[in-house]
């Protein structure tokens, strides 16, 4: 396994303020405007923990990730991320987000995309080094200068992961980040990400459709099951398995 971590003294993460709970959610209603998709009474994610969320499509898993990332305003309730209460922004580069659609700049090269993340989370001096090691960990060194639009779906997914790893965030939010990957590549990506999460005490929340895979990767698996036909009804329950 390729070791992503630099010596602890050089890690950007360790210069950040230590928070005992990376994500803390209380009475959160997730949704758009005043229609609620999901209700979470209490949820905490600690450093070094991997939390997987699964459930039927359209139930609000992606919206929950977006709310935690500060991209979607909560209908009600409080969300604390890396010590900041949303809508307040946490420290720059604290959150690494891999959207379902990846969010890569299609016309830019692999290097430029990964550097975007690396610059967000690291100092100017270390950003190139971190970008290089993340691209190497994802096995994309040979494609470093290729534009994203010439890469396959799986390769693009690896670039998005590399961008987040290069950023050295305190919290990783990943939305179906393993889809389109073959078994071997998927294992490589998972190992690299988990290695980083464990070695740097980073929290990770991932949305995964495949329950068995989610169970394999995560420390805690949350199954969102509304049990009703209309998913817009409040009090959607979260069950801990």
């Amino acid at each position, binding site marked *: 396994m390729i070791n992503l971590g630099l010596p602890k003294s050089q890690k950007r993460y360790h210069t950040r303020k230590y928070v005992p709970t990376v994500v803390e959610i209380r009475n959160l209603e997730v949704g758009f405007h005043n229609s609620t998709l999901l209700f979470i009474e209490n949820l905490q994610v600690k450093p070094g923990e991997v939390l997987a969320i699964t459930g039927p499509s359209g139930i609000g898993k992606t919206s929950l990730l*977006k709310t935690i990332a500060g991209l979607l305003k909560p209908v009600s309730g409080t969300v604390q991320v890396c010590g900041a209460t949303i809508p307040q922004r946490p420290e*720059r580069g604290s959150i690494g*987000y891999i959207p379902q659609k*990846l969010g890569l*700049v*299609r*016309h830019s090269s692999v290097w430029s995309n990964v550097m975007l*993340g690396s*610059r967000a989370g690291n100092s100017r001096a270390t950003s190139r080094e971190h970008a290089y090691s993340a691209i190497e960990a994802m096995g994309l060194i040979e494609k470093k200068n290729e534009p994203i639009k010439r890469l396959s779906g799986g390769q693009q997914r690896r670039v*998005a992961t590399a961008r987040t790893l290069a950023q050295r965030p305190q919290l990783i939010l990943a939305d179906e980040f393993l889809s389109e990957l073959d078994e071997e590549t998927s294992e490589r990506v998972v190992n690299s990400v988990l290695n980083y999460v464990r070695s740097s005490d980073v929290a990770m929340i991932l949305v995964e459709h495949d329950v068995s895979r989610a169970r394999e990767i995560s420390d805690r698996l949350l199954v969102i099951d509304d049990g009703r036909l209309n998913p817009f009804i409040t009090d959607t329950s979260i069950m801990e398995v």
Partner: protein
Amino acid sequence: MPEIDRELRELLVSVSVLLVGFWIALKLTSGLVWDWNGWSVIEPQSYPICEENRFLQFTCSTAWIGMIETIKIAILATFFGMILSLPMGLLSSRNLFPQYVTYPSRTIVSACRSLPSIIWAIIFVILVGLGPIAGIMAMTIYTVGYLGKMQYEAIEGMNNAPLEAANAMGLTKAEISLGVIIPETANHLIAQAIFMFEYNVRSGTVIGIVGAGGIGYYINLYLKFLQYDEVGAYLLIIFLVVMLIDLMSIYLRSFFTDDSDNTKPTWSGVLLPSRINVEKPLE
């Protein structure tokens, strides 16, 4: 013989067809079938004396001088307009900035677009006097209005995922603009700038009428003396030049489409209306 790609070959063929067609029409109407007075506009002016060789005598004509000035005005106006409109386009994008930034910015862009370039030309002729400087300023302002709108629409229409990822990372607006938006919409921005140049050449022929430089100045002059043959000749030359620029612009823009590997125009597509032009089956 080096291999020329299909699109370039078609461009060269269509440009040659246009130029040969024009040359034949010129010969037929210069005494061969009909002796038309209009072509005096491509003869060298009597003063200053033309020092070019026999084949380049036409470069001393009013049609050539006026057309080149129009093209120069269009190039500069597009260049300055692009530089000014890009920040305006970014500031007007609702997916990037809050309403208290986008509204004033959009108002400025709309104000620039609300008057046609000929009115701007009149204003600048009054402000800075007759000549191409007034033309450049007028068309720059209009370009900001027109290009700014096209740019913010392109930016707002872009895929939201890169913006979401960048916002979650905590990148600044300047970093998002330079690192995400401009590369992601570059093809649109370049294609729009080329289109704007083509548009500016066309509208640049008009602004000369109010004294803002270019070929319009000569058209206005001959109109005043009721010499309609010469005016007709200028219009034919403008038509030819605009067609040539259209062809080149479409060819250039084809390099900046999202799937530039397989989207290139055919020359028949440029010359014929879309209903008549039937696409060739894939080889």
